[in-house]
């Protein structure tokens, strides 16, 4: 007896499956159908809840025939491992045509066992697409399920989540959550059914509604804070976000409600940075007059808004020695020249004693404006901050590029930072020159105003060190200029 004799010719079979995700049942029926040699166009697959099969409903001649048992000598049904892997996933897809497609491919596999390798085949391709979207849905479920904690009557915590999958993946993915949260009591509710784990046993439940899940969890506030803070507004890539986290998931993600305001904030920030970024387009000044002019108009740091004037550097372009101070003081601001106050006079004395001609040097400051606070009627000096020094470095760099000194003498830590861009310790850095990128040398010593603040032995000691530093610079100058 051959297979064909066992089934009525032209009969149509409507196969009812017990559950939309029951791959095992499909596999068993499909195996029998192949053994009975029933071609794909004579089978329709009906899952629960579906409206039924059009052909099967047409008339008694095409009704749901009971499939006879396969003939004893029917060859075993074969399918490649690859087909099984793909079919297991594809069977969970919500496309009603999936079981028919699976059967068609299984049917063809009997004649062409390596059909799955032919990726250009349209049915193989479609099957792979179905499997891929199921895998993606499962992956998104792993990612986007959000548990909310509720306390049960016995005082134990219960974690409950609401999730809306696109495909029939809930039962298949229960194991993932069991392995991950093995020692937690949890439930995942979905419109396609629910699963519950109590730490030992997995139970299945009927489809649920959103209202069945808890409405919130106090930890979500912390999570939202984290989400907002880890976002880098300097790089907005909304498209990249949407492709991985499409809007359909947003309604069940507590953090997603922040997205519109984060995007709006980033755009406002971007506009502010465009304005601030104008500095970047600025052309570096080419002459000392341009530096003086530019610094006078500069409003890049808050010191410029103190109502003081910018005190430009003074001296020759091409001077061998450039002396850098911290910032203009009260007197300097009044006169508009660097180092004319008490510290300036002390500096002049020391320069004269060391044999350095101030007129042959270029004298300037790391910060061009005077920073102060009012104390009664007096303007009290305040040290500039690192940020302010770094901002003003733009002008100092320009001066160095124009003057091109062989030696830069930095007076004090602020001046050293203005030249180097980093903070150094005077006591460690003094006495030995540092090589600068442009080939010049940086010598670092204390600021003369430091000497003015000391008394007695300390002052004598520091004065001697200061004088020694200037003498060393003098000597080095002589060496360089030969």
């Amino acid at each position: 007896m051959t297979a064909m004799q066992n089934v009525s010719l032209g009969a149509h079979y409507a196969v009812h499956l017990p559950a939309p995700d029951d791959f095992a049942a499909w596999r068993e029926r499909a195996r029998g159908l192949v053994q009975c040699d029933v071609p794909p166009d004579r089978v329709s697959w009906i899952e629960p809840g579906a409206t039924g099969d059009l052909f099967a409903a047409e008339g008694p001649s095409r009704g749901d025939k009971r499939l006879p048992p396969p003939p004893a000598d029917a060859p075993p049904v074969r399918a490649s491992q690859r087909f099984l892997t793909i079919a297991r996933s594809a069977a969970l897809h919500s496309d009603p045509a999936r079981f028919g497609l699976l059967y068609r491919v299984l049917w063809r596999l009997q004649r062409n066992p390596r059909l799955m390798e032919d990726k250009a085949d349209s049915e193989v391709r479609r099957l792979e697409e179905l499997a891929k979207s199921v895998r993606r849905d499962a992956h998104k479920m792993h990612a986007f399920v959000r548990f909310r904690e509720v306390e049960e009557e016995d005082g134990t915590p219960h974690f409950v989540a609401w999730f809306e999958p696109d495909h029939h993946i809930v039962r298949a993915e229960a194991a993932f959550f069991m392995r991950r949260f093995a020692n937690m009591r949890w439930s995942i509710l979905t419109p396609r059914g629910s699963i519950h784990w109590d730490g030992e046993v997995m139970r299945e439940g009927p489809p649920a509604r959103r209202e069945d899940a808890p409405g919130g969890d106090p930890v979500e506030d912390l999570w939202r804070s984290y989400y907002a803070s880890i976002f880098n507004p300097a790089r907005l890539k909304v498209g990249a976000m949407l492709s991985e986290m499409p809007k359909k998931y947003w309604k069940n993600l507590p953090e997603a409600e922040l997205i519109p305001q984060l995007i709006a904030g980033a755009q406002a920030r971007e506009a502010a940075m465009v304005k601030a970024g104008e500095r970047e387009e600025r052309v570096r000044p080419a002459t000392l007059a341009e530096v003086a002019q530019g610094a006078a108009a500069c409003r890049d740091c808050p010191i410029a808004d103190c109502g003081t004037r910018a005190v430009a550097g003074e001296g020759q372009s091409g001077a061998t020695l450039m002396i850098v101070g911290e910032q203009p003081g009260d007197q300097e601001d009044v006169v508009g020249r660097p180092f004319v106050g008490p510290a300036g006079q002390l500096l002049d004395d020391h320069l004269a004693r060391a044999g350095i001609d101030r007129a042959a040097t270029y004298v300037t400051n790391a910060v061009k404006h005077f920073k102060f606070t009012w104390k009664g009627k007096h303007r009290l000096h305040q040290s500039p901050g690192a940020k302010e020094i770094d901002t003003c470095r733009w002008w100092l760099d320009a001066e160095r590029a124009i003057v091109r000194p062989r030696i830069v003498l930095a007076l004090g830590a602020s001046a050293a930072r203005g030249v180097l861009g980093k903070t150094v310790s005077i006591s460690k850095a003094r006495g030995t020159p540092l090589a600068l990128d442009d080939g010049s040398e940086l010598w670092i010593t204390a600021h003369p105003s430091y000497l003015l603040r000391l008394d007695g032995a300390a002052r004598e000691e520091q004065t001697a060190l200061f004088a020694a530093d200037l003498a060393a610079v003098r000597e080095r100058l002589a060496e360089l200029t030969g």
Partner: protein
Amino acid sequence: MFPKVPMQQTLRQKLEILADAAKYDASCASSGTAKKNSLGGKGVGSTEGMGICHAYAPDGRCISLLKILLTNHCIFDCHYCINRKSANTPRARFTPQEVVDLTLNFYRRNYIEGLFLSSGIVKNANHTMEQLVEVARILREEHDFRGYIHLKTIPEADAEIIHAAGLYADRVSINVELPTTAGLTRLAPDKNAGQIEGAMGRTKARIIEAKDERKRFRHAPRFAPAGQSTQMIVGADGASDTVIIGKASTLYNAFGLRRVYYSAFSPIPDASAVLPLKRPPLLREHRLYQSDWLMRFYGFAPQEVADAAEADGNLPLDIDPKLAWALKFRESFPVDVNRAPKEMLLRVPGLGTKAVARILASRRHRTLRLDDVARLTASVAKVRPFICTVDWRPTLLTDRADLRGLIVPKSEQLELF
């Protein structure tokens, strides 16, 4: 200046400061570690090979791990870093227990895959590293946490402490920060290239040792089963793409790194003035990742990627490096998809590793026509000028001088700030 010491920060304020401070680390991967789950244990957690991105921020980046700093106080003064000593930024500090509680609370609600913990350097490198290890120890030993842990290690710390980190963590990383030693000396004066590479070398040796031991003893402790990675900042110093690619390739070879991350120097609030005036376009970072992929999965040698660069040593921004290479070496094309070896198919712009695998499998069954190729690839229009099939030969296309103009995407991507 007023030191910013708030009276008493709440947990939420600390989280905001320390997550904000951590966002410049590009890595958030949670993949490629040993499989483990919480069945039979006391706590939570599983890692099953594939990483999971639990959320995406509007910057397009995946949020897989709770990525935070233990503290953003730092005794170092690296110019590109928002947490440098001289930056005027609010500071905060978590206790190890606070980080543990946050991690577990987030994990139980399925927000994250695990923890990526880094830190500013307080007191000294050893003290800081010990604190990081303590967090991992509490998670693993006291809570039997079996999720993913990525610890940033501090190269200046003692080797024993770094070793302890690798025993608890899935992945350890040490940032090389800048592609050139000169750049590092200038922008990160407290760091030392030799020390960084020394620590990476020791970590590599430990990883190999531990793998070897596990082959012989089933219960030998794992050491960083997800390997080590590193990060390079792009655009903070003058290094060209060619230099960066060369450095990355050296790092992959010398230290067996799983990943080199490229982070386009991102304008940070309160930036140091030593940094360049021009920001690198985000696209540059993308092109570097593409060239990284070419070396790791497409069989390109570093020199070949460098060949695709323009005269200034940088990769073109308007087209991807593979297309750039193909346009420069037109004599290698068209490639016959029915006959060409895998290595040549991988060179065709528009064919990814998966498409190549599909072509190789399909052509055993049929002689491919252009329609078939269209089904196997994402965009046949991009592939067409570089291949031939039984019914297609791009004789005129491949030789056209204006081919680049025909292929380059017309719409210009707006540069983001």
